[in-house]
């Protein structure tokens, strides 16, 4: 195994980018790997269950993961995470626009060759 293939502890931010949008009390967050070959790793490690856990303290009740292998990308829809959304949220970020960065903070294990800056 070459040095570039050795799995390292890192964060999603090193291998993917993301954008969050809202509809009502739901957040929709895309997750797009910098390198298409990292898509499989995202499928394996960024599960609905792990995303639910990452957003549990914000009230997330359900996560649906949509797969777009052609792009490739994943799209997560997270219910009840906006604490009422624009209608009721007391959070400074009522639309949850910053939540893409919370997703990218998730710990993952990835070889250097799949990272943005390898």
């Amino acid at each position, binding site marked *: 195994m070459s040095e570039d293939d050795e799995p390292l502890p890192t964060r999603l*931010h090193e291998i993917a*980018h*993301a*954008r969050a*949008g*809202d*509809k*009502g*009390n*739901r957040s*929709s967050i*895309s997750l*797009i790997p*910098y390198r298409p070959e990292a898509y499989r790793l995202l499928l394996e490690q960024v599960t609905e269950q792990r995303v639910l856990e990452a957003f549990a*303290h*914000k*009230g997330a009740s359900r996560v*649906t993961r*949509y797969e*777009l292998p*052609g*792009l490739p*990308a994943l*799209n997560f*829809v997270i219910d009840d995470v906006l*604490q009422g*959304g*624009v*209608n*009721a949220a*007391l*959070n*400074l*970020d009522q639309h949850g626009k*910053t*939540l893409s*960065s*919370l997703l990218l903070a998730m710990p993952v294990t990835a070889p250097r060759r799949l990272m*943005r*800056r390898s």
Partner: protein
Amino acid sequence: MGVDTVHIGCGAGFSGDRVDAAGPVVETLARRDGPRYLIFESLAERTLALAQKHRRADPGHGYSPFLDAYVRPVLADCHSAGIRIVSNFGAANPAAAAARIAEIAAEQGCDGLRIGIVEGDDLLEVMSEGEVRRYPTIEGLEIGEAPLVAANAYLGARPIAEALALGADVVVTGRCTDPALVLGPLVHEFDWAEDDWSRLAAGTMAGHLLECGAQVTGAYYADPGYKDVPDLARVGFPVAEIGRDGTVVVSKADNTGGLVSAGTVKEQLLYEIHDPARYLTADVILDITGVTVEEIGPDRVRLSGARGWPRPDTLKATVSVEGGWMGEAELSYAGPNALARARLAVDVVRQRCRDIGTNCPVRFDILGTVSVHDGDAGDAAAVAAVPADGDYRVRVASRGSDRAVVERINQELMSLYCSGPAAGGGFRQSVTDQIHTASILVDRDLVRPKVRMVEAAA
């Protein structure tokens, strides 16, 4: 035979977007051949509700407050170059917006400018308030007895295409789907049939990519060291070329900053899409699961493979009601032991709220620890590893139907100037009235779009 390619640029992606963004887009479009359009998207859910209030106060108002700022700098150039403008800045009063544009046209010598007005999105013209209230909301929000502010259905691309067929140089709508601002011109130019689902889907995808302005050209994307974007301060707004076959090429205004790459386009393609196989609009159900994205040149990205399914039988409508008050207040602590003093300030205000018996929801943050990523209970902030010394800002936020209670909670933080921990400073506060929105689905046949024309005086 007709045309093969339509060029569409976007000059604003939301109400509040840059007022000087459209200039370079118009210059770019003016250098191109064939049918060319400029769109402005400036109508968020709450923007329309506020506009409705303005209209009630003055029947000559209720259109976008940005109309002058967006239209004035480009109207004469668009008119002389034959670039047609399509926008939802009609808001709650498209007719008044058209009258205003006619005035601007007359001032600027755009003789004979024809303005198409699209109306019919206001549900209160076809049903009573009571009937609106009886619809179940998609979000499960209880509208209850709260005063109704607005109820508007999302119209599709057809009435926009109809106005263009009548010769409109400018089309002004109220509530319509954002992608319709792009799909309308495409339906007009290509004469796409009402059931040509794959092409309607491609046009909707183009609209979705353009509707947020610079969000597809490098803005809302930059992450230094990871996603670098050149000259973000002068980011160029998007220009797309859409082919008769439904191929979409995204680029941006010439001689501007920003970036069009596979990455910028993918982020916007998925933005607020939810289920990528079923993006519901008034004109078509868009399926982007088979879309491919390809960089074909500098700042040029081609998309193909959008699929479409028959449009829903219902139209989405937004219902807006009065939503009480929100209070926000902030106070800073800095330097040695600042975190402990900020936490003590929170404890004091929390205790005071209990003592005075406020029963509305209150949230406490200490900015500089964990705030926007935290829940209302502050679980993440409580365990965050942050220094004892620092520059921290206490924030108290509350909501309630009684303005006096919300003001009182703000005032409890202000009182810490003299009655709180040492050295708090920089107090700011606001109390804002709120509008709550919810979505309902109404029978398509209930909604009757109306199109009419006015002409600027010569």
